[in-house]
């Protein structure tokens, strides 16, 4: 990391147009943007961390009730959704790769693919939510849960909707970010000299995928072996 500011001359041919006035060099600007996004991702780790803490505390207190409630989630949709997000991570990584090489059409193609996969994921979540609604599993007055431990199960579903809802909100923000990138990419803004926005959005997208990588086993898989 350039501890002290690099030399004043901007590097990279397209750099001068994109170099903001208060930075001394493109590399300093790129290091700043990437460090800024990583620090933001740390805040996201702790943001979801609070929910993971609530999940851990309640699951250790009501293990059987959580397992029973988790069996009401559709595991095939869950696994499919996990795969969808992993593919979207791949297409996002390839989009960053294409931006680094300046292949304009490839950038747009991979960004649109990532957005489409994100949309699929949200669609599957919408389907799951409607199933829960019909099965009276949405916490509140209408909550019906067969079996003895209805109330801890309601806590499970409260956590389920809060965690997956928050994750879906982050997914929507991600799709919004990618839309802006597609519009910029069409104007040929990104090339080997300047593709930081694509890189930084990629970091954000991969983070949202990692959150799901943890949500999936914790919410869907815990009760399967207890038949």
């Amino acid at each position, binding site marked *: 990391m350039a501890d002290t500011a690099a030399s004043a001359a901007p590097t990279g041919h397209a750099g001068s147009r994109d170099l*903001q006035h208060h930075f001394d060099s493109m590399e300093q600007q790129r290091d*700043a943007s990437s460090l800024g996004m990583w620090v933001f991702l740390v805040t996201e780790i702790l943001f979801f961390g*609070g929910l993971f803490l609530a999940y851990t505390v309640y699951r250790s207190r009501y293990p059987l009730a959580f397992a029973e409630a988790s069996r009401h989630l559709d595991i095939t949709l869950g696994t499919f959704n996990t795969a969808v997000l992993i593919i979207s991570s791949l297409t996002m990584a390839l989009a960053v790769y294409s931006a680094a090489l300046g292949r304009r059409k490839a950038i747009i193609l991979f960004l649109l693919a990532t957005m489409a996969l994100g949309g699929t994921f949200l669609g599957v979540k919408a389907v799951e939510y409607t199933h829960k609604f019909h099965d009276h599993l949405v916490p*509140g007055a209408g909550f019906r849960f067969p079996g003895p431990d209805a109330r801890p199960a309601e806590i499970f579903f409260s956590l389920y909707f809060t965690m997956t809802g*928050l994750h879906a909100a982050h997914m929507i923000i991600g799709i919004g970010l990618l839309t802006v990138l597609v519009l910029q990419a069409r104007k040929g803004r990104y090339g080997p000299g300047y593709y930081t926005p694509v890189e930084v959005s990629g970091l954000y997208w991969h983070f949202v995928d990692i959150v799901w990588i943890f949500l999936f086993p914790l919410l869907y898989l815990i009760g399967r072996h207890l038949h």
Partner: protein
Amino acid sequence: MSAVTAPPAVDLPAEPRVNYLNSTYGLKSWLLTRDHKRIALLYLASVTVFFFLGGLFAVLIRLELLTPAGDLVQSETYNKLFTMHGVVMVFFFLIPAIPAVLGNFLIPMMIGAKDLAFPRLNLLSWYIYVGGGLFTLWSIVHGGVDTGWTFYTPYSTTYSNSHVIVTAVGIFITGFSSILTGLNFIVTIHTMRAPGLTWFRLPLFVWSHYATSLIMVLGTPVIAVTILMVGVERLFHLGIFDPRLGGDPILFQHLFWFYSHPAVYIMVLPAMGVVSELVTTFSRKNIFGYKFVAFSSMAIAVLSFLVWGHHMFVSGQSVYAGLIFSILSFLVAIPSAVKVFNWTATMYKGSISYRTPMLYAFGFIGLFTIGGLTGMFLAAIGLDVHVHDTYFIVAHFHYIMVGGTIMAYMGGIHYWWPKISGKLYPEGWARFSALVIFVGFNLTFFPQFILGYLGMPRRYHAYPEEFQVLNVMSSAGASILGVGYVVPLIYLIWSMRYGKAASANPWGSTGLEWDTPSPPPTENFAVTPVVTGDPYQYSPEEVEVVG
């Protein structure tokens, strides 16, 4: 810091030089500015508004407590008064004040940069702060919230029928302003220091803001998700903390205090940074134990996250967790003690001037020492059981927040006022108001220590008769304190227009920010300075003449 000889003769600018204040005009140039100095002034204005709003609530509370019976306001109104006093003062004044006003203005100048790493993000954080403020003001106007600034469940989620959601949204939004400021500072300090400015040549003001930014970034998201859970439980009945479903209110307290204790270090660490600058400049001496003071800021930032359980000693938390938090709470006190000893040692063999900022620094060190040591009473778990949720606690944290943070904030505003406004404040009035504040403060809060040990609980609208005399003393002190805060507001505004013009370095300080004219040009330095020496080189042998 670059070399400095004895303070230069006052060089009044002959013709009106272009600086950041008069470089552009018009409301749009202020509301859409990306200059960290203008954003700092935007914050100064909005933070001052909230300070006096919170102060108004404090005055009403003290008036109510003049008499044992609750006869000035209804109990519902009183509950809303102390809640809004807490919310406005904590989230809208103490947390943003020093970092967003002084930090925003000075950090780029102190590290020789033209601006923060993300100027647009800096402006966005001010708009987010004002947006959150509007939500809270809306809730105040429409009746406020009566859950206490701590929002304990299940009262806040189920039993309170006041505007909990609106206030929660306000605080949720303002939390992101704090995150963005912290993020901006961290990236700026890492990537934009001037050539030659290594980490151990950074001024201690920058060190303390770096530590504060770590706490902002690592703590604030947890309160954001906690408020989200309270909001979700209250709006959509997603009963995460609902005891009727088997939820646990203590889980809320853990999540709340995980942020809210480090938040009190967000409030006091920048104040310590300011005091380090004041003590060195007005003793005209190198700080004693630079590395120890710098690392004590970092130690506070880390240890502050391990101690939150001392807020829950009596709440049904397990005995063993209580012991763990008790011993860790004693550890976090050591770095603060190291700082106080180092400031005192800095004054040894110095050339100490009694200008107003130094008076505020004396006030800070004295009152913060008492505030910190009374914290020991609360960390000793057996004693905390008696004084928890009594006025002993109220006195403790006011000694640190009002006696510490606000004293240092006033000292910092006076110290950097020439650089910010290009004018000098009236020294006579300033010293008068500093003394009034010191006297008013002690008369207000020292009786509360006695009241606390007598057992008077917090948040009481009416109290037994035998506590009245001490409460009357406290209310009397509060009125003096109120006067003490209004006087600086008047003469500082007056000085903007009629104050004498200030030179680039009226105090003879060695800071980088004093090498550029006051008020500074928009890009801070004509040419990026090169740093060759340590930050506080005042003594003759340390100063080498640099070409």
